[in-house]
């Protein structure tokens, strides 16, 4: 008997491995000693440094390695292709920004502990693996690992009731959605000749594609994923969880969970197909999600809830490429999804990081708390404005390019109504995205607001995210080409 792990397998697992190891180191470094006693308030720069080093290393491993498409690593559990590396790099980038911001923010609310970082890194490792996973079991275990870490992060501030309540709701619904996912997997496994590998499902797919059990299996899995990304009607947990959780964790889960889940869903649908019916169903979900997300965001006064509904709306936009892919125009449109995910990630993170800078003792989360921010902290106000414009899809920002790509694909694929509804709902969204901007620039500050302590990490993260929004908005060509290439590696062309 031989247990062999080939060099290609080590190369493929390296990024996730680095993240897991960093998580372990962070956990051990923060245990014991005097540090532990006064943990909460201490900025603990060493944890931030270790975390940044780990995520930069993982990012380097993701960017430099690979090159060629290698499938069937670890007996088909994962593959090493540009697609997985692209999505993994997005997750790792979000991780880097979150880690930078976490030290300052967590110490300001008196909760700066090693557990936060290690849970963050374990979750990130699982997400990177999920982006590369190619069989049903590895997809499922990766999803469970990342979900578990995110549940705890959502309820991280255990002394605050909304946080615990949100986390519990998330936990119960998350477990429920895992049931759908698992049942769908069991159906697919049974119908496609008792194989767990996506490649076998893809190979057997054409013969069994008409079988109702196959369709139901794919449908159940899509429902499971819809819970994770928060598509209507499986979105009800999002506003409560986002409102309750510490804002830096919200930024992380809004970005990374969505990137990893969409990457896995795309990989699954590329392999399994699903046909006309499923595509019509997803189109309906996309329409409802876009409209409901944007309409519900209109009259939110809590900025975290507003961003939660805006996140739901963006899930709607992100579903459009899946609709196009399933109808036979081919999954080339997946590249716009990849680009959109990148744009969405930096933008959403920037918005949540701005809220994090304002928090003192607890989150300042009403839109009124932003009043007059521009006169006191012009740079933070600029980043927030950029983020809002990018989420709304105003030209010269990353969000505009992303929406342009998705709507263009929709029109070319013959789904003019999807593009139209997308554009209409984007116009609606401009109204609520501009409210924080108006508050920052045209209203007077009241009281002791905006006494920002200037945590260096958070500001650095803000600067990076703001720069990325502009860069992707003005010169998106390089990333567009890269996402097209990544998508091609997945389609094997």
């Amino acid at each position, binding site marked *: 008997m031989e247990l062999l792990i080939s060099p290609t397998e080590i190369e493929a697992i390296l990024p996730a491995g680095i993240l897991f190891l960093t998580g372990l180191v962070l956990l051990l470094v923060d245990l014991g000693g005097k540090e532990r*006693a006064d943990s909460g308030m201490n900025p603990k720069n060493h944890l931030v440094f270790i975390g940044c080093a780990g995520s930069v290393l993982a990012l380097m491993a993701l960017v430099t390695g690979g090159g060629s498409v290698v499938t069937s690593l670890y007996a088909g559990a994962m593959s090493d292709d540009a697609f997985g590396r692209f999505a993994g790099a997005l997750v790792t980038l979000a991780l880097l920004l979150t880690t930078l911001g976490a030290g300052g923010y967590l110490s300001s609310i008196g909760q700066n502990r090693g557990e936060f970082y290690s849970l963050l890194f374990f979750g990130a490792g699982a997400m990177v693996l999920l982006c590369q996973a190619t069989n049903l079991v590895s997809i499922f*275990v990766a999803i469970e690992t990342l979900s578990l870490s995110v549940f705890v992060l959502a309820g991280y501030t255990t002394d605050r009731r909304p946080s615990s309540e949100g986390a519990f709701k998330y936990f119960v619904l998350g477990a429920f959605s895992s049931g759908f996912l698992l049942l769908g997997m069991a159906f697919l496994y049974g119908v496609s000749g008792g194989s767990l590998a996506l490649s076998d499902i893809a190979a057997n797919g054409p013969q069994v594609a008409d079988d109702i059990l196959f369709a139901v299996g794919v449908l159940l899995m899509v429902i499971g994923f819809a819970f994770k990304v928060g598509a209507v009607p499986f979105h009800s947990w999002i506003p409560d969880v986002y409102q309750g959780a510490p804002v830096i964790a919200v930024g992380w889960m809004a970005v990374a969970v969505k990137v990893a889940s969409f990457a896995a869903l795309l990989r699954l649908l590329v392999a399994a197909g699903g046909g006309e019916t499923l595509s019509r169903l997803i189109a309906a979900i996309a329409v409802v999600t876009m409209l409901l997300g944007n309409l519900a965001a209109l009259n939110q006064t809590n900025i975290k809830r507003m961003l939660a509904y805006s996140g739901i709306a963006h899930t709607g936009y992100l579903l459009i490429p899946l609709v196009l892919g399933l109808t036979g125009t081919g999954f080339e449109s997946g590249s716009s999804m990849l680009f959109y995910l990148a744009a969405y990630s930096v933008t959403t993170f920037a918005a949540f990081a701005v809220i994090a800078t304002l928090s003192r003792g607890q989150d300042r989360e009403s839109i009124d708390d932003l009043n007059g921010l521009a006169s006191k902290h012009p740079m933070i106000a600029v980043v927030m404005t950029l983020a809002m414009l990018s989420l709304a899809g105003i030209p010269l920002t990353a969000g505009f390019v992303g929406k342009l790509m998705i709507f263009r694909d929709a029109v070319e694929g013959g789904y003019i109504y999807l593009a139209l509804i997308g554009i209409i709902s984007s116009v609606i969204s401009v109204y609520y995205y501009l409210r924080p901007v108006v508050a920052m620039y045209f209203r007077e500050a009241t009281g002791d607001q905006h006494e920002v302590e200037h945590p260096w990490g958070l500001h650095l993260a803000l600067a990076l995210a703001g720069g990325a929004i502009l860069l992707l908005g003005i010169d998106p060509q390089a990333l567009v080409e890269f996402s097209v290439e990544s998508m091609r590696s997945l389609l094997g062309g």
Partner: protein
Amino acid sequence: MSPWLQNTIFGVLALLAVVSSLLVVTRKNPIYSALFLIVMFSTISGIFLLLDASFLGFMQLLVYAGAIMVLYIFVIMLINPREGDLPPEGGFTDKGVAAGIALIVFSLLAFAIGKSEVLAQLASSGPFPARPLPSPTHGEIAAFGLELFQRHLLVFELASILILVGIVGAVHLTLRRKAGAALPESSEDAPDDAGETRGRELIDV
């Protein structure tokens, strides 16, 4: 074993499993729920045995019906919830809606299973729990181990991370400490800090 006998045993076990899991969710007293869960786990292990997966079957019995359920019952007795402590259950409409949705999902799945041609083909080629021909070592510990450590090595390792996340999360969520304030090293605080100190020792080790 003749296919007829196998089908009958499967039918009995499956019926028992469904009935006992229904009882798990309908009992008011959590101890009864836990006991019916043991029955449910045992029937599942019986189904594993029926499929010649002897190792998995006994593990199911030992680990789930045995160890884990003992833990469950321990915790339930420790918390000792009374009628009044439990949150009020949903009214008739809540239950009606839930039952309606469950019924829709169930009939969709039943319809899919009944209509499926692939499944019909599989079922006509052998005894009812349709399956491909097993290898001669199927279900033995050695075969199980090889499967786990070779084919599913990556997932096996990932599962260990999953458990670690669970441990860290559980300790963090249940550890009582004062937010923001420095944790007291000496015990000048209220007596209910004892649990906190104990918890801290646990993870400081």
